[in-house]
């Protein structure tokens, strides 16, 4: 499965490839898509990766962050402003965990709504509304992480005879938290 990228040799190679991808993407973007290039630069400069990591309580991929950020800007014209407000607020509060932020802000508040939009993007892998929605990530969508090792991401099956056991038993055997 694509999110199984823990092994260290693969990790370093992946990082290298990611770097190369950023370079080539930048080259292409700057020549052909100045608007997207500007958005990507804004993503890097805006602190979207760090804020995303805080909101989803886990490391956020810089490559995906760039794609989510530019998609959010495309679908919601006021996103840069909304995001700046959210980032500014979080910076002033020193929350230890996103749960503290969620307790501090009312669900109807614009800051909460912006946080929800960013979390929804990372979790579902989709940005936008209704028929205009756009897929940014499938197997790397974070919604699959809580049930990883028990349920597959459809089309990325576990192989013949990879089911039939009691998931509770299997998780115990693997020494992972249930």
């Amino acid at each position, binding site marked *: 499965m694509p999110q199984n990228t823990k092994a260290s040799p693969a990790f370093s190679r992946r990082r290298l490839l990611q770097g190369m991808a950023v370079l080539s993407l930048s080259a292409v973007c700057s020549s052909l898509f100045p608007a997207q290039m500007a958005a990507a630069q804004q993503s890097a400069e805006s602190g979207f990766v760090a804020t995303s990591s805080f*909101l989803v*309580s886990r490391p956020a991929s810089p490559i995906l962050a760039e794609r989510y950020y530019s998609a959010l800007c495309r679908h919601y014209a006021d996103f840069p402003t909304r995001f700046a407000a959210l980032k500014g607020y979080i910076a002033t509060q020193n929350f230890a*965990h*996103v*749960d503290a*932020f*969620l307790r501090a802000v009312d*669900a109807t508040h614009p800051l*909460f709504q912006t*946080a*929800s939009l960013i*979390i*929804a993007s990372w*979790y*579902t892998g*989709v940005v*936008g509304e*209704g*028929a205009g*929605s*756009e*897929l940014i990530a*499938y*197997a790397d*969508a974070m*919604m*699959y*992480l*809580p*049930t990883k090792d*028990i*349920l*597959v*991401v*459809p*089309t*990325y*099956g*576990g*192989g*013949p*005879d*990879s*089911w*039939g*056991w*009691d*998931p*509770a038993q299997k998780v115990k055997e693997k020494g992972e938290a249930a």
Partner: protein
Amino acid sequence: MKQVDADVVIIGSGVMGGLVATELAKAGKSVIIVEAGPRIKRQEIVERFRNSPFKMSLTNMKLQGVGSPYPDLPHVPSTYGEYLQQTGPVKYPTKYLRVVGGTTWHFGSALWRMIPNDFKLQSLYGRGRDWPIDYQELEPWYGRAERELGVSGMDGQDESGHGGEAWPPRSTPFPMTGLEPSYLFKRLSELLGKGGYNPVMEPNGRATRPYGRRPACAGNNNCNPVCPIAAKYDGSMHIDEAERHGATLLDNSVVYKIEADDAGKITGIWYRKPDGSNHHLTANYFVLAAYGIESPKLLLMSTSARYPNGIANGSDQVGRNLMGHTGISMNVMMKEDVWPGQGPTELLVYLNNRDGPFRKDFPSYKIKVRNTVPTADYAASLIKKGVLGSKLDEELKRMSARSLNFAIDFETLPLAENRIVPSKTRQDAIGLPVPEIYYSVTDYWHAGKTQGLLDFDNFARLLNADVSKIDTGYQDRQHIMGTTIMGDDAKNSVVNRHCQSHDHPNLFIAGTSVMPSASCMNPTLTGAALSLRLADYLLKTVKV
């Protein structure tokens, strides 16, 4: 006979057309298969599925037009969009695929036999119609269809649902052993068994060992919309085989007219290409295999001075008797982790009310448990409700582990008023009328619903689960039957017991549209058995 383009022209390249084409081509006959839609490549459909923001699911039905990974082309509009016009009190939003290989590309792959009593509904229970043939007549063809389609199943099960001895009778075993049941299926069998519910594992088209060119099922949990590895049978496999034996396939060729001479003989067909050009084909024999909506639509469109009501329609039954498995569903929340979504998308069903004297009063039905990976639906709905942070991960896990969906499929009866006709007001992009569907249910269906809801109550109690939702909104199960109904009497049926038109001896109809009764089971294997029997009749009796 005069010079013709082929011995046999087959209209439609789904499983039924593919089976007939393969049998005829193997016997050395010249065969042309005419398919309205395009050829598709599995890897492209898989990629389109993965890249789509809308995954097929039970909860975003409205957006499935956007989400179907299959082509939606001007000359073959997708049935996931606005193509099918609904005019009746109950919607019949069926989804079939107009591509080479047909609708089995996205079927769940349940491949059930009917049981003997399903063929005698009128004489046993005073409901619906009897078939002109009985189970024993079809039994060997069921066996052959199971081998052709590569069915995996559990020998020895009582598929009538009574927990008794093996039923229906079989002269041959399943070609492959059954799939391993998931933990969910085992646990449900245990809990529901205490209430007298007998678990039955569905025979299906997923390979459990390499079978022909198919690998074993790898638990991709994606039977619908597409098996990524071709472990699950689909009709394109028989089209490929027919072509290897010399059959010719014309894709993107929409047949819009069947012609007959004054004596009743079918002389040719006309088809239209996406560029609007019209083409003619002749043959000695014709097999119509365009499934339960396009087949009758084409017959009804083929009007002329001699045949003002269309081809094969002396009985006025073409397009009528539309049946389906109109259903209901229940969502429950368990108090223990059972994890639906492991392994293939469906397997366990309950058939306690598949057959019995009750069919005088309410219809046969099956209860099935959904086993699709639910993550995407839950994530979207939780976030919408404001569930974020640690709670989001916890809830995703809890709902995925404990939320279950049970669905009931009811048998419906052949009713003359439930019908499909070519629209008089709307056309597709190449100027052909779209299908218009009138569908309704009777008190008989509602009596079944009442009974089914009692089972839902029992299920929730036996599972110690809380009911979160019950939907009685006439859910469509995409099983089209009855629209070119079979019978011995030319006055009230379209084809005879050999699937041969009463009006046109050189016209045959293959598929589930000829079925005189629907039972409560997925009809594909019955259609396949009838198609193989039809091919045999063409070769041995008609001597095409």
